[in-house]
């Protein structure tokens, strides 16, 4: 069994009115052609039914028999019968071909729509409506949905352990993917309601002044809830891990990352760093909680930078642990910037020599993407473009000058933890990837899907970077102007020759 990804594009540079009209006209023509062929197939099928009746009539016709009753057919009847037989065979072929053409036209309609980001909002609303789960956050706090939410959130245990053995939970994630955002919002409201109740019982309790009741009604209720949780968890984690970051530069035995050729190339480097920092069969000197900072030399002699940040590793002394995710998701800039992972990356950027005006691009996976969004929202650096893979960053107040390219898999849960869809705009492009089993032979699979390498027969966690890599590759193949323009912008930020790559490892100390 093999797996493939198809992508849909949302946001980015919008189509011009003229282009949108043309694509809508193309979709309408493809749809109409599909209907015509379906009708033609039906016409041949009707003829086929008629032929069955006619054959019976000819076979039993007393005029066309030598002797009656039950005699054999006369010579005069033979041409009629042989015509019917030939017609029957031809009908089968016509029905088959016309149905196939109709299916091709349907598949092309889907291809055009997802390449150009058309109908996506309607499809999303339809998916939510048909699922019967209202997106009104207050109503998602019912006990039945809390049960469903707990099933989904149990699967975070799968994410935490990087263990692909829990097939039932992965199947739950896949099946419930249209509900993840709504459920996370409902969950956060339940958390805030609990906090509000505890404050009512014990006025003055709680470590943050943010009003939980106000947060329940806001779009970023998840981030408000995270702020409340972080106000407690941060202190607990500091006691456990310590609050001092020991940052050291590492020198791997060989170059783990190379020149990034556009967004696709940057994803390759991110994946290489993520997979190498956990060690391979050969010890290259890199370990967990390691980021890479690349310096590019532009034609005019100025420097540009690419910061590459892998995700949560969960080690006891890592700045990229699980609690830091909560801090990074906070609605408050101060809390976000206090997160150990954000502090580590900032220190590494400073020690690498990145100037405040130097153009910087950042690419991150999971927590690495949340760090990228945090720096683009809250830091002093000139962050021009961030690429996030599997990161919940919808509510981060990213600077208006920064471009954001987000890659999210439908069923990976993590990007939905912000409880909201990413903003849509020229500077924010979201690529949604959908994983499915590869359909072989019968041509009913989607047109143009990207195979996922190194997959097992069983469903795997789509939070793995290889899925985001396949999703981006498929999006690029769609030829959407939005994807092309984002890639072009990313290349312009780090235009130049790669001059040096530095690797920075962080450890928490008391």
């Amino acid at each position, binding site marked *: 069994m093999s797996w493939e990804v198809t992508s849909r594009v949302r946001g980015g540079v919008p189509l011009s009115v003229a282009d949108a009209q043309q694509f809508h006209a193309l979709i309408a023509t493809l749809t109409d052609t599909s209907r015509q062929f379906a009708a033609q197939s039906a016409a041949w099928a009707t003829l086929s039914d008629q032929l069955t*009746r006619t054959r019976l009539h000819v076979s039993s*016709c007393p005029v066309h028999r030598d002797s009656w009753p039950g005699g054999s057919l006369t010579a005069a009847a033979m041409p009629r019968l042989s015509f019917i037989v030939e*017609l029957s065979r031809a009908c089968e072929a016509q029905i088959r071909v016309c149905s196939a053409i109709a299916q091709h036209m349907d598949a092309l309609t889907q291809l055009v729509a997802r390449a150009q980001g058309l109908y996506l909002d309607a499809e999303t609303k339809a998916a939510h409506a048909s699922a019967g789960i209202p997106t009104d956050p207050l109503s998602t706090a019912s006990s039945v949905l809390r049960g469903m939410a707990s099933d989904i959130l149990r699967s975070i245990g799968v994410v935490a352990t990087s263990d692909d053995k829990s097939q039932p939970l992965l199947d739950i994630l896949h099946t419930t993917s249209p509900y993840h955002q709504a459920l996370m919002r409902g969950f956060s409201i339940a958390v805030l309601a609990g906090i509000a109740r505890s404050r009512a019982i014990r006025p003055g309790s709680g470590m943050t002044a943010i009003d939980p009741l106000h947060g329940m009604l806001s779009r970023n209720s998840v981030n408000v809830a995270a702020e409340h949780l972080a106000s407690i968890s941060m202190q607990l984690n500091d006691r456990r891990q310590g609050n001092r970051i020991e940052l050291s530069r590492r020198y791997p035995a060989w170059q783990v990352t190379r020149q990034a050729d556009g967004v696709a190339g940057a994803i390759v480097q991110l994946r290489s760093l993520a997979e190498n920092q956990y060690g391979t069969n050969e010890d290259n000197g890199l370990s967990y909680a390691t980021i890479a900072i690349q310096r590019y030399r532009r034609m005019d002699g100025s420097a540009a930078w690419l910061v590459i940040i892998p995700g949560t590793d969960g080690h006891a002394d890592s700045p990229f642990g699980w609690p830091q995710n909560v801090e990074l998701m906070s609605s408050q800039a101060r809390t976000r910037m206090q997160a150990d992972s954000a502090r580590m990356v900032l220190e590494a950027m400073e020690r690498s020599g990145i100037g405040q005006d130097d153009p910087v691009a950042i690419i991150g996976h999971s927590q690495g993407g949340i760090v990228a969004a945090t720096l683009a929202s809250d830091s002093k650096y000139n962050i021009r473009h961030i690429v996030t893979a599997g990161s919940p960053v919808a509510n981060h107040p990213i600077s208006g000058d920064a471009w954001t390219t987000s890659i999210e898999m439908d069923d990976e849960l993590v990007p939905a933890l912000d409880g909201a869809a990413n903003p849509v705009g020229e500077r924010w492009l979201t690529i949604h990837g959908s994983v499915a089993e590869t359909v072989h032979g019968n041509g009913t699979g989607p047109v143009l899907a990207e195979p996922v390498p190194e997959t097992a027969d069983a469903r795997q966690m789509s939070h793995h970077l290889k899925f985001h890599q396949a999703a981006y590759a498929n999006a690029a193949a769609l030829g959407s102007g939005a994807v092309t323009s984002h890639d072009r912008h990313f290349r312009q930020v780090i235009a130049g020759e790669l001059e040096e790559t530095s690797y920075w490892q962080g450890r928490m100390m008391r």
Partner: protein
Amino acid sequence: MYPSSDHIAPTGVHHERAYDSMEDMNQHIINHPGLAAACTCQTATTGTLNHLDTACASTERCVTSLTDTAALAASIDWHGQAAALMRDKVTTAIRMNEDVRQRAHALLAIRQEVA
């Protein structure tokens, strides 16, 4: 229900009767030896030919649809792998439909012989 049989009795009265089976029809004719047999398949054959005409007309309309689709696909400002794949599939669909059309024309030619 077995196909009906139009029987013209010696008296000139036209009877129409539906049979439950081939055996039922045969037995009825055996029991009424005076009945002159009439053709039972002409109506069905005519119906078949009408349906064939309908299906062939539908084939011609699809040619127009595909031609329009191909023209729009060629003119639209869309590049890359997906766009090339789309245009290729439309071209393939035109070839497939040409087979359908040729087959339909061949059947129409034979149709004349049995009409």
